[in-house]
C-alpha cells in the first residue's frame, strides 16, 4: 500500500503546485512560430504570476482566418505592418491605447507615427527586419546581393533553393527585379512577373518555413527569407552569408495587438507594457535575432548582435529597402492570382 500513498502524495503536491503557480490568470498569445523568446515569457510569468500559452501560426493569412472564424481563445496577436489595417478594419482589434502606457516613452520615434497605426493606438512594436538572401558560400561563391539568386539562379544553386511562402515578400522582390514599383497594376509588367516566377519555381527545392534548421544542415543551399532566421543559420554554420538584393527588398515590422474578444485584457495590457521595456525587448531580439523598436535595448543585447551583417544594412544598399504598404483590393486580387499560379 505504500506506493499508493506515495502516488497520492505526488498527485496532491502537483495539484497544489499547479494551483499556486497558475492562480493569478492566463494569457494566450498567438504568434509566428519560432519567434517568441522563452526566457522573456518565463520572466513575464514570474513577474506577474500569469500562465502564458503560445500558439504558432505560419502566415498572416492563417492568423487572420483563424481569428475571424471565432472561438480561438487568444488574447494577443502579432500581425505584420501591412496586415494591421485589415485587422483594424475588420474590427478584430481592441483599441488598447498603448501610447498611454508607462513604457511607451521607450519606443523609438521612428516607430511611433507609422502608416499602419498612426500614433500607436492599437499596437506596439515587436520586431522588425527584412527579407533577403542567404547563401551557403561553400556551394556558390558569386555575388549574393541580388534577387537573381532565386529568380535566375546560378547553376550551382538550381534545385537547392528555399523561398519563403509569403506572397507579398516574393512578389515585391520580383516586381522590383523586373523594374516595377510595389502595388503596380501594370498588366504587361505583372505578366512578366508571373512568367518569371513560373519559370523560376522548378529551380527551387521548397517553399517552406523550417529554414533555421535546414539551411545550416545543408538541405538548402540558398534561401529568400527573413534576416533573423538567416542570422541564426549563420551562427550554426559560418559558411552562410547574407545578401541584400540591390534590385529591392522589403522591410517588415510585426506589432503586438490585443484582440477585441480577448478574455484576459488586463494581462494582455501588462504584456504590451512589459515588452516596451528595453531589457525585455532585448530578450526578444536575442532569441529571434531581429531588431526591435525600443530605445536603449541595444545595451542589453548580446555582443554578436550589435554589428551583425544581417542586421546592419550597408549604406549603399539601404535605398533598395522599402516598407510593404497595403495595396488596393483590385491590385491584391491580381497578386493573389499570380500567387496561385506560382503555388500550384
Amino acid at each position, binding site marked *: 500500500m505504500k506506493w499508493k500513498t506515495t502516488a497520492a502524495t505526488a498527485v496532491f503536491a502537483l495539484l497544489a503546485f499547479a494551483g499556486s503557480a497558475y492562480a493569478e490568470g492566463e494569457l494566450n498569445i498567438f504568434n509566428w512560430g519560432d519567434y517568441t523568446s522563452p526566457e522573456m515569457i518565463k520572466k513575464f510569468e514570474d513577474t506577474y504570476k500569469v500562465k502564458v500559452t503560445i500558439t504558432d501560426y505560419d*502566415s498572416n*493569412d*492563417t492568423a*487572420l*482566418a483563424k481569428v*475571424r*472564424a471565432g472561438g480561438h481563445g487568444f488574447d494577443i496577436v502579432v500581425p505584420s505592418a501591412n496586415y494591421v489595417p*485589415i485587422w483594424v478594419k*475588420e474590427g478584430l482589434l481592441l483599441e488598447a491605447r498603448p501610447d498611454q502606457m508607462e513604457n511607451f516613452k521607450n519606443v523609438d520615434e521612428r516607430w511611433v507615427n507609422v502608416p499602419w497605426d498612426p500614433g500607436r493606438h492599437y499596437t506596439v512594436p515587436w520586431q522588425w527586419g527584412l527579407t533577403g538572401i542567404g547563401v551557403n558560400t561553400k556551394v556558390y561563391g558569386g555575388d549574393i546581393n541580388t534577387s537573381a539568386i532565386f529568380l535566375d539562379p546560378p547553376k550551382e544553386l538550381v*534545385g537547392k533553393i*528555399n523561398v519563403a*511562402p509569403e*506572397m507579398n515578400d516574393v512578389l515585391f522582390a520580383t516586381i522590383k527585379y523586373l523594374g516595377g514599383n510595389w502595388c503596380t497594376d501594370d*498588366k504587361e509588367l*505583372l*505578366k512578366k512577373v508571373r512568367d518569371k516566377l513560373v519559370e523560376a*519555381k522548378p529551380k*527551387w*527545392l*521548397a*517553399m*517552406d*518555413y523550417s529554414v533555421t534548421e*535546414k539551411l545550416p*544542415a*545543408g*538541405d538548402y543551399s540558398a534561401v529568400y527569407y527573413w534576416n533573423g532566421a538567416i542570422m541564426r543559420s549563420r551562427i550554426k554554420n559560418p559558411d552562410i552569408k547574407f545578401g541584400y538584393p540591390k534590385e529591392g527588398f522589403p522591410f517588415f515590422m510585426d506589432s503586438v495587438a490585443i484582440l477585441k474578444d480577448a478574455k484576459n485584457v488586463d494581462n494582455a495590457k501588462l504584456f504590451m507594457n512589459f515588452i516596451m521595456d528595453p531589457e525585455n525587448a532585448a530578450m526578444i531580439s536575442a532569441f529571434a535575432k531581429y531588431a526591435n523598436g525600443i530605445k536603449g535595448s541595444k545595451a542589453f543585447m548580446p555582443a554578436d548582435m550589435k554589428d551583425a551583417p544581417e542586421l546592419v544594412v550597408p549604406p549603399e544598399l539601404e535605398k533598395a529597402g522599402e516598407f510593404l504598404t497595403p495595396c488596393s*483590393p483590385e491590385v491584391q486580387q*491580381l497578386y*493573389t*492570382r*499570380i500567387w*496561385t*499560379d506560382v*503555388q*500550384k
Partner: protein
Amino acid sequence: MANAEETARAADARDIRDRWLLSAPALVIILLAATGPLFVMLAYSFMLKGDYGDVQFGTFSLDGWTSVLFQRDMFDDTLGLADAHLTIFWRSISLSFYTTVLTLLFGFPTAYFIATRPPKTREVWVFLVTIPFWTNLLIRTFAMQQVIRNEGLVNTALMALGVIKQPLQIMNTDTAILLGMIYIYLPLMVLPIYASMEKLDFRLVEAGYDLYAGRWQVLRRIIFPLIKPGVIAGSILVFIPSLGAYVIPRVLGGGKNMMLGNLIELQFGAGRNWPLGAAISITLMVLVMIALLFYVRNASGSEGAHG
C-alpha cells in the same frame, strides 16, 4: 383465428412503430451531425467569397464551382482550364494510385507470411504490424524526413559506403510524398488482406498442387480469388486517405508539391476563397464515393460467386 391474426398484426405494427420511435434519437443525430455539415459546405460553395475569407451570406454564385476546373485569364480575361488545379488533382490521383499498388505489392506477401505462421506466432506478427499506429502520424512523417533528407540516414549511409558522391535529392519531391504514404498506409493494406487470408482454407491450396497446378497458378486461380474482398478493402482503405492526405505532402513535399488536402487548406487560409474550398472538398468527396461504389459492386460480385 381471424381475431388472433388481427391481434398479431396489430402487435407487429406497434412493434415496428416502437422500433422507429426508439431509433429516432439516433437517426436524428446521424442526420444532423453527418449530413448537416455537408449541407453547410454545399451552401457555402454556392455563395460569393468575402474579402478576407468567409462568404457573403445571401448571395448566389457559381464562381466557386467554375473555378474548380476553369479560370479566367487575369490578363486577357478568356476562360481557360485551371491547369494549377488540374495538376494538383492529377498529382493526388496518381500518387494515391501508386501508393495503393505499391502497398499491395509489399502488403500481400507480408499478409501471406503472417497467415502461414502457427496461430500463436501470428498474433505476435499482427501485433508488430499495428505498433506504428501507437505513434502520432505527424511524428511518423517527421521520422521519415530524418531518413530521406540530404543529411539523413539513407544518404549518409550511401555516401559512407561510396555508392554516391552527392546526396540523393529525395526530400521535397513527389517521390518523398510517395515513400511517406507507402510507409504510413502499409498497415491498412496488410490487416484486411491478413483477415481474408486467415480464413483461407489451405487444404484448397494443397489440393491445387495435387492437381498439378504451378505456384503461379495456385496464387492466381485459388488464393487470389478467395482473398479478393480483403485486397479490395485494403486498396480502398489506402486509396481514400491518400487522396485527402495533408500532413505527408506538407512535411515531405516542401510546400511546393501540393495535393488536394493542401489545396483545400490553402483556399480556407491564405487563399481566402471559401466557396472554392468547399467546392473542391465536395469534388474530393465525390471522387471517394466513386471509389466506394466501385468497391461495393466488386465486393458483392465476389460474394455472389463464392458465397
